[in-house]
């Protein structure tokens, strides 16, 4: 070695073939890093389900409605209070559950991406709540008036959405596409049977809203339990009486809700159901047995209604992973899927805000107490 020093080991710049070879090697290193980045971004995997694809599916099914949520697009803002009775403190260390009052910014909505869809009894209704304690961390939750969710994965949601896409020729979903989806998703067939058996109430005020996804409550000692939760109305249940094929007013569900809020605050009990070891936390299509222990954590009171055009909920993303310490996510894959999808929807609609049209439920309609 002493006699034949390696020309690459000294300080002289390389030239000629060796330089070209090394230049190519450097190029290869940079290319590998760039390709890894592109792969991570999903640019090399057209079949991967991404946030952008999910947004595209909503647009394909519901059309484009700048500034509106991609799902649960038709809604009404509300405000009120959560009066905690302190019962949940034993189960969760979240400040919200200490006995006392926490202000709420809520939203009632109908599932679907059309912001001006007609109110129909069977359309899934939702209640979203943002708990904003003066001290401690906030909590956001979105709940639906169905007992279980029809799918248990992001892929299932996406495929079901596409299968429900209206056929341009008929304006209705293609039954063959839905059939084909159901054959591959027996969990959805079972869930739809449970959902079909529910008793549909007359409106938002007498609906029970369910978290569907499981979470975990963690108390000050660090003990954790699986839970699902629900808001159960104190308003007396009245069965839906809209006849099949009847056409009530396009906003009849929202106008009824506004009128009732104008008369007196509407109230729901916030109830946590404690899961047993055998209750699935990663599958929102499966109901938990009826005999599980329930914890009544306090009262949700809804006192004021606002149109989305001037209401405080319009610019809130009810991301199910905005959780205080004391409420942890479970292993339910839908939580990540919902959080990621809502975040993308929120980013899109925030950017489109100046192009947004008026909400279907107008400021005047709310001021008039639910008449137009």
């Amino acid at each position, binding site marked *: 070695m002493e006699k034949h020093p390696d020309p690459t080991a000294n*300080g002289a*710049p390389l030239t000629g073939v060796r330089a070209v070879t090394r230049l190519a090697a450097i190029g290869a*290193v940079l290319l590998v890093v760039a390709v890894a980045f592109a792969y991570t*971004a999903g640019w090399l995997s057209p079949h991967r389900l*991404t946030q952008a694809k999910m947004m595209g599916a909503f647009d394909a099914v519901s059309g484009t409605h700048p500034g509106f949520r991609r799902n649960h697009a038709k809604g009404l803002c509300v405000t009120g209070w959560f009066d905690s009775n302190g019962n949940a403190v034993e189960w969760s260390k979240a400040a919200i559950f200490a006995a006392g009052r926490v202000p709420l910014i809520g939203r009632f909505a109908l599932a679907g991406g059309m912001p001006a869809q007609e109110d129909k009894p069977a359309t899934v209704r939702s209640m979203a709540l943002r708990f904003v304690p003066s001290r401690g961390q906030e909590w956001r939750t979105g709940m639906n008036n169905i007992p279980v969710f029809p799918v248990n994965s992001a892929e299932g949601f996406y495929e079901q959405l596409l299968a429900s896409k209206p056929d341009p020729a008929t304006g209705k979903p293609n039954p063959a596409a839905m059939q084909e989806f159901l054959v591959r998703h027996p969990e959805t067939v079972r869930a739809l049977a449970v959902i079909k058996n529910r008793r549909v109430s007359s409106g938002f005020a007498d609906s029970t809203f369910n978290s569907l996804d499981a979470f975990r409550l963690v108390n000050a000692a660090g003990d954790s339990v699986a839970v699902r939760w629900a808001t159960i109305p104190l308003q007396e249940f009245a069965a839906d009486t809209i006849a099949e094929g009847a056409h009530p007013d396009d906003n009849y569900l929202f106008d009824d809700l506004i009128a009732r809020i104008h008369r007196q605050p509407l109230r729901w009990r916030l109830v946590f159901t404690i899961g047993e070891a055998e209750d699935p936390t990663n599958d929102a299509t499966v109901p938990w047995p009826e005999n599980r222990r329930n914890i009544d954590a306090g009262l949700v009171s809804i006192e004021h209604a606002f149109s989305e055009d001037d209401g405080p909920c319009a610019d809130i*993303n009810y991301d199910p992973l905005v959780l205080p310490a004391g409420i942890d996510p479970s292993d339910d894959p839908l939580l*990540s899927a919902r959080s990621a999808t809502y975040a993308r929807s929120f980013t899109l609609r925030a950017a489109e805000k100046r192009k947004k049209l008026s909400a279907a439920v107008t400021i005047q309609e709310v001021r008039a107490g639910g008449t137009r």
Partner: protein
Amino acid sequence: MNSHGQRFSVFSRWLHWLMAVMVLGMLFLGIGMAASVSERYRLLVAIHRPLGVAILVLVAIRLVNRLLHPPPPLPDSLPRVQRVAATASHGVLYALMFIMPLLGWAMLSAAPYPVVIFGSVQLPPILPQDPVLYALLRKLHTDFAYLLFGVFLAHLGAALLHGLIRRDGVFESMASWGRRPRE
């Protein structure tokens, strides 16, 4: 060693390589997170936020360290164009290491999302709620991430050029760890 045989201080080299891993990891986490609807999304977000805060703290320490311990001079043999490119790209890297975490913090504030780092550890908002501003900051966070990745690639390419072809000691001034050989 550069042509003068000088290296960055040991602390500077540690900071550089630690942050290299963190920043590159952050770029991959971020671009993966923004595409994902999978179960990994929650984990990616949970790493992205505290890692961003750590980068912000470390880059502040690093800037002070750089002012106290200036880097070894570039070799005289380096053409002027490359000298300017090196200075400019280092400036952009420093600027983006400050800007990216602050943009992330600011956009979450404007959304508004609570800026949870982990558990009950939460940063205060640095902007009032403003969805239009959120949308702008969110877009800048992505655009600057692409810019940062591009400048990182240029930085890596230049470092390898110095080390493998120019062999002027610039690469070794940051990437050699052995005992300093005698001149």
